[in-house]
């Protein structure tokens, strides 16, 4: 009976704590939305804008009919590669200086490209020129062998084909953006720690006045703690489920087909986050502000190391500091989601889940050892 009573009132208490609700429920959703806004363009095929270039109008250029033709055809039509201007050398230099063009071409032997700085557009111009030169060289060799091929050669040059076929390595393609969302979920699970922080503060009579009152009640401390922690866990798991639903149904993030496992991971992750919060709260004997600061920083650091801001960081840690990667609970949680999605077998997933469960057990046990049997004769 007592369990039900505490559970019910604790849940009511937590539901009225707007700040915690914001950080644990709304903030991850906002973060995921920001990711969505800034990443949505990365995977889509961007509309290509023609690159402004110039070619120096000298005798060599005018004599090189095939090059003129190639440049001309690349600068025509709706899907053109370049916006071409034919100018004098001085004018081309001036245009480059004024950022009107990315580079200009001088039709020497070999063809020369002048640019002001390096970038993707400059590389495209260079690749275009390389392809032209190489194709021209091939055409010369072919005509030396077989002069009658002139007509068919031109047609063949203009019908370039793609020779690569994209085959995903697993059932689903490793999508660079999904891992961002996985870190958001992992972080959201871990943010359950804010609830955990509060649970322990509200059970230690020397920290808060609510706790002092609770300790007066004729209920075993562990029972009181477990009932209120159960309420916090229920609330937190619901929040994570809402986030999952938001990601899956509104942002259309692909979590693969193993829904049950995704839910299981989210649940174990919630337990881990919550228990980490209780541990920090039990360990740090300072005020609420310091506890929150330490917890926030730790979570930030873990999320950063598991690639929330930049995936390069995750891969560097995974490959160069594997121990750190295994000791980072947020990273293991991210990996669990990713493994479910990416690998055909479940062995990698099981390994990651074992790590998370281990973390959760350690946190729970440590919290228990710290807060048990603490009595207060006088406060």
């Amino acid at each position, binding site marked *: 009976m007592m369990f039900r009573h505490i559970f019910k009132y604790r849940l009511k208490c937590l539901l009225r704590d707007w700040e915690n609700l914001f950080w644990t429920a709304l903030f991850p959703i906002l973060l995921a939305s920001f*990711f969505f806004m800034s990443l949505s363009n990365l995977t889509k095929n961007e509309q290509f804008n023609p690159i402004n270039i110039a070619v120096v109008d000298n005798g060599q250029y005018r004599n090189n009919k095939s090059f003129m033709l190639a440049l001309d055809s690349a600068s025509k039509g709706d899907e053109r590669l370049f916006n071409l201007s034919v100018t004098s050398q001085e004018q081309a230099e001036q245009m480059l200086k004024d950022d009107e063009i990315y580079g200009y071409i001088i039709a020497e032997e070999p063809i*020369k490209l002048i640019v*002001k700085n390096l970038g993707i557009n400059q590389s495209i111009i260079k690749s275009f020129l390389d392809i032209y030169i190489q194709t021209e060289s091939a055409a010369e060799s072919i005509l030396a062998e077989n002069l009658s091929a002139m007509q068919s*050669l031109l047609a063949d040059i203009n019908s370039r084909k793609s*020779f690569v076929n994209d085959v995903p*390595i697993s059932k689903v393609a490793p999508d*660079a953006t999904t891992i961002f969302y996985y870190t958001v979920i992992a972080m959201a699970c871990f943010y359950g720690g804010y609830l955990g922080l509060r649970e322990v503060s509200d059970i230690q009579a020397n920290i808060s006045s609510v706790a002092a009152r609770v300790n007066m009640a004729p209920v075993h401390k562990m029972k009181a703690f477990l009932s209120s922690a159960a309420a916090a866990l229920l609330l937190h798991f619901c929040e994570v489920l809402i986030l999952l639903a938001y990601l899956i149904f509104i942002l259309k993030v692909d979590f693969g087909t193993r829904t049950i496992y995704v839910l299981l991971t989210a649940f174990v992750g919630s337990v881990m986050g919550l228990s980490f919060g209780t541990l920090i709260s039990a360990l740090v004997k300072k005020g609420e502000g310091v506890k929150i600061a*330490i917890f926030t*920083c730790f979570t930030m650091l873990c999320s950063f190391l598991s690639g929330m801001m*930049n995936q390069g960081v995750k891969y560097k840690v995974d490959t160069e500091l594997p121990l750190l990667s295994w000791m980072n609970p947020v990273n293991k949680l991210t990996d669990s989601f990713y493994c479910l999605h990416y690998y055909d077998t479940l062995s990698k997933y099981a390994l990651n889940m074992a790590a998370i469960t281990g973390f959760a057990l350690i946190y729970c046990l440590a919290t228990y050892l710290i807060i048990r049997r603490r009595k207060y004769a006088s406060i």
Partner: protein
Amino acid sequence: MQVFKLCMQIIRKNIPVMLIYVILTAVVTALMVSDIDKEYQKEISFTPAKRSIAFISEDNSLLIDGFREALGQIVNFVELDETQLQDALYFREVTYIVRVPAGFTEEFMKGADVKIDKSTVPNSVSNTYIDLFINQYFNTARLYIKNIDGISQELLVQYLKEDLSKTSNAEVKSTTGKKVTYPTYSNNYFNFFAYTLISVIILGMSMLMIVFNDRNLKMRNSCAPVIPGSINLQFILANLFFTFASWAILVVMSFIFNYKNSLNAYTVYFIISSFIYSFCCASISFLIGNLIKSQNAVYAVCNTIGLGSSFISGVFVPQELLSGSILKIASFTPAYWYVKANNAIAKLTQFDYRHLQPIFSDLMIVAGFGLAFFAVALAIGKRKNYIEN
């Protein structure tokens, strides 16, 4: 100056907690920026650094041997078992796996439509180079096969080797004649500044708010013989002082992290633009502090605004990669104009008025935002006082 002194005291008391946040943000920023910088150096070059790839061939022929040799010029091969492939791609041991299917050469020599399979790490610029190379190799080969009847594989490979070794001559030339090194590190650092600074200022602001918004303290303060205008002014002064102190610390940090490439004209302009932006941050935090009562709510709202505007205005993801509609929304935030100005500074080759003018107009917009927020904050503060009285 009692109010100002009080603010300083509050800040001083909270230095340990703030240091935790400031150091963490600075370290994260520095790490991340240096990582981006390295990636950038690798990717943006006419001859990109050699990437590691796996090459699996189920077909054995002279053509494929020649292809592998040619490909070896631009990549490093890593020997992998079939079972290691998923892991290798996952941990980025390789970024590209080429798989030549059985019977490829035979079909290809007949002129049939065959393809090479690839599996890749997505969104990597260097993969485009490999795609381009493969396509160029086999497109050129196709020209020979179609136009020289019965060409042998041996001869074909020889021709291809000769053709593909020819390239255009590219030259990077600055307009002043000197070779310029662009300040990519400083550019990224100062772009991240937009996020770092606003988080730090929010922290300080929320610490002041918790004291000043205490009901009892507020009542005591309002019966002090100090006019509300003066209280407000001192509060703003303290706010600005704190802002510029944090700004100075972060600027000094940028020198520490990147002392080698910091002593140039770019840094001067980055410092100017970040100074103007920090003024804008102060006014945003002041406005929010005026609108919202509880300290934690201030922190929540500011964090959302800070992260949100950073994401959409190109602090975390480069502006070129964001979609047009997002950027339109972002142009209503000061961070967008600040980042835009920074990116323009980083591309400067000449520091004359004509080239600097667009940068100054961007920064004027940032300053304008700052003034507007201050004005709104003061108006709201006045109205609130009026209602309370």
